[in-house]
């Protein structure tokens, strides 16, 4: 049988892409208006600086900054995978921020205090974050605690605990943890020659291809396996899943463990490159997790969409540092990304709008066809 071709506008994926593009456009336009309000003369230059991001630098520097942007895209992608994975079972994983912190805590402590090589460090961070996620899942299934609320509480508990623990491996004259490069170079992720591609940018490691592979794997698990099917069924209707004989509570806990582990892995993949150290006086939960929520929704809750959207958000974040800091502030790009996530909440409404238009058109066509037929009968 021949498969009938659906027009592009009727495909769900295309509708999602279209809605996301509208969100991005909306965010950029409002961002531009804000720039105009601050100082009209340089606003156009500033918004192009944000949009051009690392492309405005000449050859070698561009490659270096491109590499750094990719390095920072990795944790963002992992956090967004964590969010969308949990969302499939109907859990809003706002705890992703805390799980990310737990991952950083686990891998940095293992690397600096126990001097372990990179793989065990990465795994310790992953398990620490996974367990934190599982606590949320456990509290949900055993005690009926809302995952959003327990996630928020655990975020702050983890942040303070991490400051306490990593305070033991901080450098004596700054609030930051010790440099990995000087203290335990074995804990740095292997580069396998990838840094050569990016003008010897030392922070480019196997984390980048690994993150893409994990994103594809998550897509596979969700769409092509029995486990993924059960998760989605639990998310759609908890009681129906239970009635169908699925272990719905166990599924929730496992999902939250995996979601946490993904966020923790993301943290490891950033901090074990040595590009950044943990600041032990951090007074608020890092934005990485919350940005992950933004990225997940901007990517239409699809792992492949997340790859694109996480790169985009990191791209304009880097661009934000390019604006003339004597006039504007680099936070303009956080403003744009927060506007984009705000608009993303309207995606459902926007899709509904498109579908409504399509339905109206269909009805018109059907009515027209019926009229013709009637006309034919009369003849």
């Amino acid at each position, binding site marked *: 049988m021949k498969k009938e071709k659906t027009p592009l506008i009727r495909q769900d994926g295309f509708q999602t892409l279209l809605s996301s593009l509208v969100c991005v456009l909306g965010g950029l336009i409002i961002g531009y208006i804000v720039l105009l309000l601050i100082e009209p003369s340089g606003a156009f230059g500033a918004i192009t600086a944000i949009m051009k991001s690392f492309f405005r630098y000449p050859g070698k520097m561009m490659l270096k900054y491109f590499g750094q942007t990719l390095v920072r895209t990795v944790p963002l992608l992992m956090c967004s995978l964590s969010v969308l994975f949990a969302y499939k079972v109907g859990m809003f994983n*706002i705890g992703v921020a805390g799980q990310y912190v737990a991952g950083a805590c686990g891998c940095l402590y293992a690397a600096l205090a126990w001097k372990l090589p990179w793989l065990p460090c990465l795994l310790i961070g992953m398990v620490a974050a996974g367990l934190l996620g599982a606590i949320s899942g456990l509290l949900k299934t055993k005690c009926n605690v809302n995952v959003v609320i327990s996630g*928020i*509480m655990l975020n702050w508990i983890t942040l303070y605990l991490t400051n306490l623990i990593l305070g033991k491996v901080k450098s004596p004259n700054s609030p930051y943890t010790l440099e990995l490069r000087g203290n335990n170079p074995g804990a740095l992720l292997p580069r396998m020659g990838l840094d050569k591609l990016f003008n010897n940018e030392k922070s480019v490691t196997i984390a980048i291809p690994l993150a893409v592979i994990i994103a594809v794997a998550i897509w596979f698990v969700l769409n092509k396996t029995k486990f993924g099917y059960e998760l989605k069924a639990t998310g759609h209707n908890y009681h129906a899943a239970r009635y169908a004989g699925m272990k719905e509570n166990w599924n929730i806990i496992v999902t939250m463990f995996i979601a946490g582990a993904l966020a923790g892995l993301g943290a490891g993949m950033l901090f074990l490159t040595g590009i950044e150290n943990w600041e032990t006086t951090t007074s608020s939960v890092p934005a990485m997790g919350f940005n992950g929520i933004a990225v997940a929704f901007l990517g239409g809750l699809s792992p492949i969409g997340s790859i694109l959207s996480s790169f985009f958000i990191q791209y304009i974040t880097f661009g934000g540092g390019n604006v003339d800091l004597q*006039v504007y502030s680099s936070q303009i790009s956080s403003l744009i990304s927060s506007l984009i996530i705000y608009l993303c909440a309207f995606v459902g409404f926007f899709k509904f709008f498109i579908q409504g238009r399509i339905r109206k058109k269909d009805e018109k066509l059907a009515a027209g066809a019926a009229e013709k037929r009637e006309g034919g009968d009369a003849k």
Partner: protein
Amino acid sequence: MILLLQYTIIFASVLMLVALGGCFSERSGVINIGLEGTMVIGALGGALVMKYLPVSAGAFAMVALTVLASALLGMLFSLFLAVAAISFKADQTIIGTAMNMLATAGATVAVKAMNTIASGGNDVSSDIAYTHTKDLFIVRLGEFEFNWFMLIAFVCLIISYVALYKTRFGLRLRSCGEHPQASASVGINVFKMRYAGVLISGLLAGLGGIVYITAGVSVWKFEYGVAGFGFLAMAVMIFGAWHPLRIALAALLFGFLRALGNVYSGFDFMLALNIPGVVYNMLPYIISLVVLAFTSKKSRAPKAAGLIYDKGSR
């Protein structure tokens, strides 16, 4: 000891105001995760008044205008939540998360722009200083610094209690958070009630914001937002079981713990215990999580909180 008491009361005032805000919103059926962001915007409004209004305006005008600016901006900002979540049926959790990011980023951009323009490019910080005007809020009673905000918080508590439990409006608002379809069936306008709930929460959270940033310091760096106080207030609301009077008690307890974290180094016996300061910061969250774990089976939370109101469903 007096310092501890003073900090406890002022922190409790902040937490109580914001938690009462959250209470109004959730009682009407909308979860307001954007409390943190609303505090930032309210704080910004108040801080600007305190920066630009001259000291000669007098204590009454200063307090009144600051309160007004904070409350108004908080309300305006909460419209972000109200319009999206009530009129457009968007997911309340995403909106709240976006609002928190938006508030800190927006406030930072705004303050930096103002500082940059005012200084001709020399000062690109996100600080607002209100050193002189802050004194107008304080009445010294011996060693204890009485702050007018303490009284305002107390008044808000009483009004909230009466509004929620002794008026027709309160009964209707609460019904919308329990079973909106049932409320609609007896002629209550659920949309209007939810708008009211969210706007009141914006007002109270905005007020809480200005109280928080003037509590201990006289310069505020807006890049830091309000350092998690909005989320702590959510914990207070939950610990207080969505009831104004219990919220007041919970706020006192959590405020005390927070104050202890600030001033514990002033007490010899507390230093001797050798507990790191972060433990006091952590405790409120741990306590509320434990309480939640034990009480959530038969939760007192409004039943329809967080659910999108759909006229058609039953």
